[in-house]
């Protein structure tokens, strides 16, 4: 079955991973800007990174027949330095015209600090000014519930951002409801240790009738599985999901959200 990987950090993955994902049916990968595992020393480092995910990575993906899209931002883990953040955000508008850029992301919070919140709000303003889709990262582990609440509170101040054009990612059982109830889309991230296992992600999908939800691997340089989405689709079959409902999660839902960007071209299924 064809599927869309709506969140994968492919700069951290090998070319073998692209091949394995293609063999598993992946037709589209979306790559949000993120933390490289270390702090970049200057805005120029981000300019190079933005060129990598808007120009180079689409070519790597294309070798395997995969469409590649990206999102741009300075991630919350590097947002404590507000001067650097301002320099990086000033770079973003020129890259928004690249043909594979879908919006601003993954922005959000990490440790829920004042500076992170300030930079998050500046990104929201950027998205609002440029009418961009928004992809939001919610914090890890013990910081997630508080951070999600702070994020949802901040979004209330941006009336120009339609909740249906904002996706709040990495939700779990204690945050999915508060996100979906306010009209936002939500993402379920499949990680071996933190975030959701396939079984729990399917529980949440069932509890919310798979409405305004997508699943992703968020595969990166850490412990993660680029095939987490097809593994979850297989578990859905074992749990009695119909083919049509599996396709809704694997393809229709991400397509519905991403198609709000005129740059997103739905590929034909193999």
């Amino acid at each position, binding site marked *: 079955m064809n599927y869309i990987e709506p969140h994968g950090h492919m700069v951290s993955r090998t070319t073998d991973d692209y091949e394995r994902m293609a063999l598993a049916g992946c037709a589209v990968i979306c790559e949000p800007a993120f933390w490289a595992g270390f702090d970049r020393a200057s805005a120029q480092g981000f300019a190079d990174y933005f060129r990598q995910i808007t120009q180079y990575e689409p070519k790597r993906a294309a070798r395997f027949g995969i469409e590649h899209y990206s999102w741009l931002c300075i991630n919350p883990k590097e947002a404590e330095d507000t001067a650097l953040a301002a320099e990086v955000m000033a770079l973003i508008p020129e890259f928004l015209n690249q043909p594979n850029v879908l919006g601003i992301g993954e922005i959000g919070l990490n440790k829920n600090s004042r500076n*992170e919140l300030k930079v998050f709000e500046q990104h929201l303003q950027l998205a609002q000014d440029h009418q961009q889709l928004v992809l939001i990262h919610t914090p890890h582990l013990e910081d997630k519930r*508080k951070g999600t609440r702070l994020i949802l509170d901040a979004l209330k101040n941006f009336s120009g951002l339609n909740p249906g054009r904002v996706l709040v990612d990495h939700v779990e059982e204690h945050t999915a409801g508060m996100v979906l109830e306010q009209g936002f889309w939500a993402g379920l991230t499949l990680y071996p240790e933190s975030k959701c296992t396939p079984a729990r992600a399917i529980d949440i999908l069932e509890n919310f009738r798979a409405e305004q939800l997508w699943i992703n691997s968020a595969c990166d340089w850490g412990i993660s599985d680029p095939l987490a989405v097809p593994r979850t689709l297989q578990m859905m079959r074992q749990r009695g999901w119909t083919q049509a409902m599996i396709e809704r999660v694997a393809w229709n839902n991400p397509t519905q959200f991403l198609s709000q960007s005129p740059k997103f071209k739905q590929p034909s299924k193999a």
Partner: protein
Amino acid sequence: MSQWTAPKTVNLVDLGFMDARSKLIDLAAFLDRVERAGQQDDFRVQALREAIACLQLPQAQRAKAVLDSFSDPSSEPLPVATVKGACGANPPPHLRA
């Protein structure tokens, strides 16, 4: 908006019991291990013990209750982020960065 079609009924116990049993034994063994090593007072182990109580809740809200029990209960932003990582449980004030 497309129609929701509920999954057909399958035996979820057949599908998940052995996995759940294995994880429960691993959890028990972990608690034994840290106790033998004299590390049972670590705040993360204490948080785990408190979270285990959520398993006895009568409603099907146990996963949410466990996650809530591990969560930072505060609501105000931190003055400054001095670390990047999270440890999985809410640290006591003297251990917060």
